[in-house]
């Protein structure tokens, strides 16, 4: 029975051989001319922006990402249903209506609770002082670090000159 899984092993081996082989081949065949621009994330001219104080995002982005996933999943379910709409018949229609209804309820809840409001509802009333203190500490530190010019631009400029 385990022999049935042999194609998976073969596939994995082939994938590994291909990855290692192509890297090795290109390192042997290509001309070696190192250049700082080649190390930048996008070679199309956009300077990558380094975020202040390490890798911090506003927590609001995470909320947006979570909300996005809700509607993303809705679409994921809608597509296969649309493709096989005729063969699923009335049952499929009712089930999909229930599903969309549930997502809509979630949407109404988020909307009423201010989930789409970028500036509202930052601090829970019972935690105000602690959070304000923490945010303030974070804010002052990130400001200081922004004032210092990031070193990204330095070698970027040098690269262009070279």
């Amino acid at each position, binding site marked *: 029975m385990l022999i049935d899984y042999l194609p998976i092993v073969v596939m994995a081996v082939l994938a590994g051989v291909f990855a290692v082989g192509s890297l090795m081949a290109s390192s042997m065949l290509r001309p070696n001319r190192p250049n700082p621009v080649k190390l930048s994330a996008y070679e199309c001219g956009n300077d990558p922006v380094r975020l202040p104080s390490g890798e911090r995002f506003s927590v609001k982005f995470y909320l947006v990402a979570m909300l996005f996933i809700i509607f993303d999943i809705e679409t994921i379910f809608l597509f296969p249903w649309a493709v*096989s709409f005729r*063969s*699923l*018949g009335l*049952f499929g229609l009712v089930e999909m209506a229930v599903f969309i209804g*549930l997502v809509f*309820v979630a949407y*109404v*809840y988020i*909307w*009423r*609770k201010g989930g789409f409001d970028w500036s509202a509802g930052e601090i*829970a*009333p*019972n*935690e105000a002082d*602690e959070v304000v203190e923490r945010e303030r500490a974070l804010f002052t530190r990130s400001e200081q670090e922004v004032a210092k010019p990031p070193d990204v631009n330095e070698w970027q400029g040098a690269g262009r000159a070279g």
Partner: protein
Amino acid sequence: MIPTPALEFRPILPEILLCTFAIVGMLYEAFARRPDPVPHLAIAIVGIGPAAVTAYALWDWSGPSYVLGDTVAVDRFSVVSRFVLLGAAFVGCLYYTHYASRDPGSFRGEFYPLTLFATAGMTLITAANDLIVIFLALELLSLSLYVLTGITGRRRASEAAMKYFLLGAFSSAFFLYGVAMAYGAATSTKIVGVAAPGIVQALAGQTGSQALALLAMALLVVGFAFKVSAAPFHMWTPDVYQGAPTPVVAFMGAATKVAAFFALIRVFDVGLQPLTWDWTPVIYGLAVVSIVVGSVVAIAQRDVKRLLAYSSIAHAGFILTGLTAANSTGIGAAMFYLVAYAVVTLGAFGIVMLVSARGEEQTSLDAYAGLARRSPGLAALMTVFLLSLGGIPPTAGFIAKVTVFSAAIGAGNWPLAVVGVVASVVAAYFYVRVIVYMYMREPAEGIESDDGVMPRIAAGVLAAGIVVLGIFPGILTGILEPASIVRW
């Protein structure tokens, strides 16, 4: 045309009702002008009551044993669990309504919908006949409980919620991997298949290597052991019990254990029944470790919520002791234990909530000093619950321990019963210590008892139930006997 299975919704009507009223509560919370617990409580009760009625209607079910494409089982086993779980949800909602009235600023109406969703997951998991449905129900109850744990937004609660979430997600992955392995072993995720052979039929007919089935068994054990907080998968329990708001702990501690154990019984005693000789030693080992770790570590605890958490680990071990019997006697014993445990846990955490009017911070043993003088009623109720947890007659805890030990001895596992009895003696020390604090110490200064009436009545009813069950256990065993035969 893709064929759809025959649609028979009556067996999952309790879950449908719970989810419907959870959504109603959610929409009410979205549109309510000001926070008010009373309409929320009313919506929750309107959901729980009819759910209990529809569950009761399934007691004398004459239709097929497995419905909705063999994914849901209809039996008395699941009816019993639904009753216990719905009761726990009801008491949890009552507690929270009082808890929120102490500090209206911290009130979150989401408690009620989340509790109903969690209950729907719990009741579904005990009736599910398909590992995928079990996983779905497990996630529904887990995700709701993660949020409930952190619902106050206080630091301790958020920390507990985070720990619970991370470890819970990890254990869910184990469970899911086990499901995949079970599918590999049996080419089905149904526990019992009617239309096509399910796991039990496939495994019973198998000769040759059982490596995949054993791997599936091991991974499923990990997933369930986490949920029932059996050692060595218990690490989250003390932190979560300590950090979470007390009404949530009351509901969670009682209901999660019941739901996870009922699902465990169905998966192991029915689905993996052909592997009984392989899984009983595992359950045996888990039982020994849980009993010893829970009972010994609890001695060192000075926080009552942590103490009850370690005690819950030990109780998971006692319930597993009954399950080592792997027959309907063992299942019946475990069910009796679970019912008694759920009632006691709900009551004990109700008292923990009432001991101090300022709640969360004062759960240390010192807050219980002289409680009998401060509020004799609370001390008396707490004594009943602690005696039942310790397994001292005439409480239900005593009968529960006797039944699980006799089930284990009946199956020839007498060394396990010896370990259990010795650990019970050890455990009696820390239960009695709380009683000593309550009755023989000078009252702690500056702590006022909460004078909530509704939780007192609830805890009083629960305590009365414990004593009645301790004296007349036949009331419950008569109900459990027909329910403990899980059909396949």
